[in-house]
């Protein structure tokens, strides 16, 4: 139209005006307020209640937070400082206790002169975790992650290097046997890869340890499990449980969906039993009953016992989550795998599990989070976890008697950060693995 006007038209406007901004009521902050907060009387009411609630919380906690004291050597000193700075009767947090007992919160009763070992283990943990979490990193780094657990065990518990090394050697023997024999006979290879390392661990490691210990004594100060505590203990239990419960959970889930009647029944029985009892009961089994179930005279590490029971507990829940993922997979996927002539394990490994695990990521991560939270229950079998045992220990000191809230806030915040981080990572993973296959 523009530029071509009929000669009879007396006037045609050629200049376009800029659009006017929308009226103030329909834009910007006021629109947002009206739509999101005051769209109706009911909504306005809710908003007022919400603001009231926030005000209540902030007015109670903000002064307490801000008046916090970071430098003091006892609760009384804290209160004195608060009273002198903020006036008599002012409330304030005594963060000094966290500062004073920081090491206890992190390491428990781990010997102070070798704190570098847990710290180094933690740094290595992050390095070993990186290639597992982020697939952009080169895949060769995964070998480091595989070796890491042994290094961590040695660094944390100390002692001679040889027993730990022999565990690794057992795995290497198994892997080598599998590689060599698998071409000839897969079943023989699988059998050999399991049986030979177990025999090696049972009968050969002891003498070899002794021999190597004499010839080449490499050893660092050993730390008994009872001295572990604080977040060190929580993370050891949590990470150990996570690493071991995932494979066990997968096996249990496959067992529960198996065509073989007995395998299925045993899996169902185990899963339902474990899911039916509280974790505390299982922890008591670890601390009180395992001595009955094992050969007379056996007495093995309390952390290991607890970790085994926590692993079994978590594995049952993970198995159910993965079973859901397996059930959600379309039947055609199984049939396609059969049609390709894949055997059971190949079909599971290449077709079924990658998809089923992808579907179950949110549930698996929830189980991990639940398990990390459940590590706090070990306080009831006498281990020094950070939520109850360590604060109780600190309160037993006269200087810090009667201090509660600072511990709750500090420990709660750390648990929140770790668990919230895990759930966010699971969302990232879901987004990354999402394939819109329609």
């Amino acid at each position, binding site marked *: 139209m523009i530029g071509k006007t009929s000669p009879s038209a007396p006037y045609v406007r050629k200049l376009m005006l800029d659009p006017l901004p929308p009226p103030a009521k329909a834009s910007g902050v006021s629109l947002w307020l009206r*739509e*999101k*907060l005051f*769209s109706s009387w009911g*909504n306005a009411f*809710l*908003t007022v*209640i*919400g*603001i009231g*609630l*926030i005000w209540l919380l902030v007015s109670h906690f903000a002064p307490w937070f801000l008046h916090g004291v970071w430098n003091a050597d006892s609760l009384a000193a804290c209160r004195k400082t608060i009273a002198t700075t903020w006036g008599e009767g002012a409330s304030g947090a005594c963060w000094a206790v966290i500062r004073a007992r920081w090491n206890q919160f992190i390491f428990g009763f781990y010997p102070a002169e070798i704190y570098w070992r847990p710290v180094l283990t933690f740094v290595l943990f992050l390095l070993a975790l990186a290639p597992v979490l982020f697939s952009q990193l080169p895949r060769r780094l995964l070998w480091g992650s595989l070796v890491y657990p042994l290094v961590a065990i040695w660094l944390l518990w100390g002692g001679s290097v040889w027993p730990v090394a022999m565990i690794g050697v057992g795995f290497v023997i198994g892997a080598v046997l599998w590689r060599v024999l698998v071409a000839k006979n897969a*079943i023989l290879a699988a059998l050999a890869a399991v049986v030979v390392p177990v025999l090696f661990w049972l009968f050969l490691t002891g003498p070899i340890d002794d021999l190597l210990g004499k010839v080449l004594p490499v050893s660092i100060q050993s730390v008994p499990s009872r001295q572990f505590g604080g977040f060190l203990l929580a993370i050891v239990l949590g990470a150990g449980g996570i690493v071991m419960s995932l494979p066990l959970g997968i096996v249990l889930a496959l067992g529960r969906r198996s*065509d*073989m*009647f*007995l*395998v299925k029944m*045993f899996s169902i029985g185990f899963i339902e*039993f474990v*899911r*039916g*009892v*509280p*974790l*505390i*009961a299982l922890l*008591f*089994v670890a601390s*009180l*009953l395992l*001595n*009955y*179930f*094992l*050969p*007379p005279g056996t007495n093995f590490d309390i952390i290991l016992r607890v970790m085994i029971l926590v692993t079994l507990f978590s594995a049952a829940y993970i198995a159910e989550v993965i079973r859901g993922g397996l059930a959600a997979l379309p039947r055609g996927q199984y049939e396609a795998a059969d049609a390709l002539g894949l055997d059971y394990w190949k079909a599971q490994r290449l077709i079924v599990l990658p998809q089923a695990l992808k579907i179950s990521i949110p549930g698996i991560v929830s189980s991990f*989070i639940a398990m990390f*939270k*459940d590590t*706090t*229950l070990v*306080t*009831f079998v006498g281990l020094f976890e950070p*939520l*109850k045992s360590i604060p109780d220990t600190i309160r037993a000191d006269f200087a810090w008697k009667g201090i*509660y*809230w600072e511990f*709750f806030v500090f*420990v*709660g915040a750390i*648990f*929140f950060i770790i*668990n*919230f981080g895990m*759930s966010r990572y699971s969302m990232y993973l879901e987004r990354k693995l999402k394939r819109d296959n329609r």
Partner: protein
Amino acid sequence: MTSAPDAPEQGFRLSQLIYDTRYRSLTIQVVVLIAVMAAAGWLVDNTVRNLHALGKDFNFGFLWNRSGYDIAQYLIPYSNDSTHGRAMLVGLLNTVWISVLGCAAATVIGIFVGVLRLSKNWLVARLMTVYVETFRNIPVLLWILVSMAVLTEIAPGPNEYKVNPATGEASASMMLFDSVAFTNRYTAIPSASFGRSLGTIDTPLMPVSVDWVLVFAVLAVSIWANARFRKWADAVQESTGARPTTWWKSILIVLVPVVVVAVALGFRIHEPVLKGFNFVGGTNVSNSFVALWAGLSLYTGAFIAENVRAGILSVSKGQSEAAFALGLRPGRTMSLVILPQALRVIIPPLISQYLNLMKNSSLAIAVGYMDLRGTLGGITLNQTGRELECILLMMLIYLGLSLVISTVMNAFNRKVKLKER
């Protein structure tokens, strides 16, 4: 796996057990069975030998011996002269009681928060998100301990409710029209009694109050009558198209008989009153119970809120739009269209949340509430030294409770499930 008809007939070879798919699963199962039996046999053998070495035997006779310890909270009569078996029963009932109340409170919180989290109100939705994320990511033990600390450290002592003669005011005041008082030792709540009581019947388990039985029986009958009445209204609506007014008649049917019976029995509510150093007249609920209840409900409520939210979100928008197009009002849309479909998604995870709450109630150990773990798995175990019997029995009972809850809830689930064709 039928063989071709012209395949050469061969005798059975041992290698077929592994390579032939007809036999392989059998072989594997036999191997698994042998392995499991061997492991079980090994464990039992170890246990027998260990027990023998310790000079112990395996029997549950101790359950009939005198317990000799007191329990602070009991629902059925109990004294330290009662048996260990009865102590176990007291603990079991306490576990059931806290679980029932906890599930009820958690469900209310969960529905409330789950719906509000979907609110169009930005502020409220954010607040609820903060609540859910905070409670879900921090161990339940912390919430129980925090509740306990709030009650013991912050709540006033009973004597602070006393009116100071000089100022004419008390330093603490009761809540809910002077009916509830939080103190640092207990929470005082009103109790109820009957002025013209019909007495109690003594059963071996517990004395049963005839009054309460009568009240509940009348309530059950009137609820049944109301169901009949509604069915009749439905039938009228089906045949004539007009629904008779039911709401006030329903209320009358349900409430009037109960109120009449209660008044006839002289029903009274006693509010707690401060006398001397303590509250009397009402019921004093121990702080350990209140703390455990609050901690469990708030924690589980956050999980249930997420289930409720997921359930409501799972109903597609087209359903509510279709309901609006049919002319249903928002309330009816919710109750007739969205909720029945959302329940299908909400109930299965709700079952597992109830189970979790029941299992988490064993954290009573942290605040000293005497549940099953506190009696059977706690003091009885320590006094008799029979770890094996006590813990096995305790696990079996928890397992039984889990089975009962999941059976009941699954039956409910089948009832509300959409009937699909």
